[in-house]
């Protein structure tokens, strides 16, 4: 693999390639017609609200669920058909802590190392490395059930990487973790990528999404946008206006329900207002609307953030009537 070819989307360069991947649970369509291409050697993010199909997609990709339609190739293996041979090459970190709480850190790591068939020498060596790299040395004899959220997450990642997988699938790994631990965690992820690992990580944190090399945004089981974070922010078909006023709730009331306003997000005394890009001079528009409602406010155009992208694209699937609803 030379650098020149790496940029092309040849099958050999893709860690994951999914075509029309779908999964239904009864009447619920969890994942619908997902086309996905994840190049090797990067952190690829799945961004989406709860219930958007992130976990289901990850489970489909490692063969834990059968697709209702479509197919996927992961590291050159068809899933779910060839999932058994894939198991040696991937590491999976479940959303819920899934190591044994009644066993110690060391016992858990040793168990996983044995299950992956590592030799005795390799086992000792890798476990020692893992204890050091993930700062688990002092916790080695602690029961996993007594660990904090951040410690559990480090242990889970250590266990998922003992067999040096080419692909790591991480399902909301940082959901129960404090900000500092999240920062540390991402440092480790980038170190793994540097060693050649491909990482697919699902998240609902914007700051984490922004750290990914590439990103797919999922909404109600549909892939609504993908690209690098910068691309996504540049390609957004919305204009963003920042409104500052003394009466933010009144601004909210004045603007909500209007067809030309896609969404309003309050940030303290300010509001980010999303308008369709087709609207000319968006800040003038908003100022006009507010003046008509008798509200004094300062309005500036501003550059879209990833959150704006998220809000804009995940709106589409829903009815436009609720377009003025406040995003949390």
């Amino acid at each position: 693999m030379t650098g020149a070819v790496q940029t092309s989307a040849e099958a050999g360069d893709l860690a994951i390639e999914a075509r029309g991947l779908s999964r239904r649970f009864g009447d619920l369509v969890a994942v619908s017609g997902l086309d996905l291409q994840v190049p090797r050697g990067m952190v690829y993010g799945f961004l989406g609200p709860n219930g958007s199909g992130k976990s289901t997609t990850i489970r489909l990709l490692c063969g834990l669920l059968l697709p209702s339609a479509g197919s996927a190739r992961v590291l050159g293996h068809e899933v779910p058909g060839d999932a058994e041979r894939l198991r040696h090459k991937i590491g999976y970190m479940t959303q819920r802590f899934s190591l044994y709480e009644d066993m110690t850190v060391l016992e858990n790591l040793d168990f996983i190392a044995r299950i992956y068939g590592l030799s005795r020498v390799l086992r000792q060596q890798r476990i020692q490395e893992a204890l050091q790299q993930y700062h688990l040395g002092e916790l080695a004899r602690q029961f996993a059930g007594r660990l904090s959220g951040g410690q559990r997450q480090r242990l889970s990642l250590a266990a998922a990487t003992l067999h040096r997988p080419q692909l790591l699938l991480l399902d909301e790994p940082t959901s129960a973790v404090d900000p500092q631990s999240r920062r540390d965690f991402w440092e480790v992820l980038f170190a793994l990528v540097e060693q050649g690992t491909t990482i697919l990580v699902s998240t609902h944190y914007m700051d984490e999404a922004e750290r990914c090399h590439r990103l797919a945004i999922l909404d109600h089981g549909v892939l609504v946008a993908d690209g690098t974070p910068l691309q996504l922010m540049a390609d957004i078909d919305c204009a963003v206006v920042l409104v500052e006023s003394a009466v933010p709730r009144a601004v909210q009331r004045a603007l909500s329900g209007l067809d030309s306003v896609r969404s309003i997000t309050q940030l303290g005394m300010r509001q980010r207002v999303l308008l369709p890009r087709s609207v000319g001079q968006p800040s003038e528009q908003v100022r006009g609307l507010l003046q008509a409602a008798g509200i004094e406010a300062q309005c500036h155009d501003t550059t879209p953030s990833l959150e704006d992208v998220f809000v804009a694209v995940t709106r589409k699937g829903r009815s436009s009537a609720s377009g003025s609803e406040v995003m949390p």
Partner: protein
Amino acid sequence: MSLQRLWAILAKEIRQLRRDRLTFGMIFGIPMLQIIMFGYAINTDVRQLSAAVADQAGSALSAQLQSQLEASQVLRIVARVDSGASLQQLLDRGQVHVGVLIPPDFERRLQQSVRPAVQLLVDGSDPIILASVQRLGNMRLGMDTAAQVEPAVQLFEVRNFYNPERRSAVFVVPGLIGVILTMTMVMFTAVAIVRERERGNLELLINTPVSSLELMLGKVLPYILIGLVQVTVILLLGAQLFDVPLNGSLLEVYVAALLFIAANLGLGLLISTLVGTQFQAIQMAFFFFLPSILLSGFMFPFDGMPRAARLIAELLPLTHFIRLIRGLMLRGVELIQLWPDVLVLLGFFLLSMTLAVLRFRKRLD
């Protein structure tokens, strides 16, 4: 099939079991408590039934009859009244199970032997009590003839019937091995897989190279060892407390137990692949447990049951084990003579394990 992975699962199971103090304690506690409890309590020789006597004769012979009744230990005279109506009252209130009415013309009746000399009023609501007292009726006849110094043989015969040596403990203990193993073994593996599912461990485990067979065997093997430990506990206590003989070969008893343990573990594992929660698993284990106790021949004689019940009983491993263990321990036969039951137990194990392995999918749907 990798021995290293099998060993990893096995070692993990043992480690977790050792840390689960309550379950670990139950491995020894359940067999000990149950054998002591049931060894003493399950007793088909009914003794010391509370009785009331209305002695309207008041003769030396009627007094002798009463002392004979008490000597039989079947009855314990707790009240003396003077009329049949009072006896009825005591029975109605449930204060006694048996009423003995000795009429004023007791001695004349004995001489004439036309009508029965003594009336026994029995609380027939419990068939076991009724049966015992009916047998007591035989004894009275013996006593009658003894009065005429004729065949004391009959009286002797009745005594034999009552089995003064408490033989039923001997009969119950070997069966108890089977009952206790059914209860603990099926339960252990019934929750084995589903517990990992509930705790979230399974999603990680099925994403590793571990195979269904490795996982299933790794879950079964530690409990085989535990089952054999339980057998040893019951055998030792049975010999110590109840003088239960071992007329056959000890090795063959263990072979039979091993087969039975394996069959139950396989069944439990199959349950574990069928259910979604530990609660369901325990319910299913109980669903299986009750007919095992009632129909296997442990509680009631197998031959006395209706045909349909016997057919169901043939589908329960306990039925076959009870035949094996009673044969080995009490009748002292060789295992090879009981080969059909041996084969059935082996078949149970192989079938349930195969089904469990086939049913278990390394998937979440």
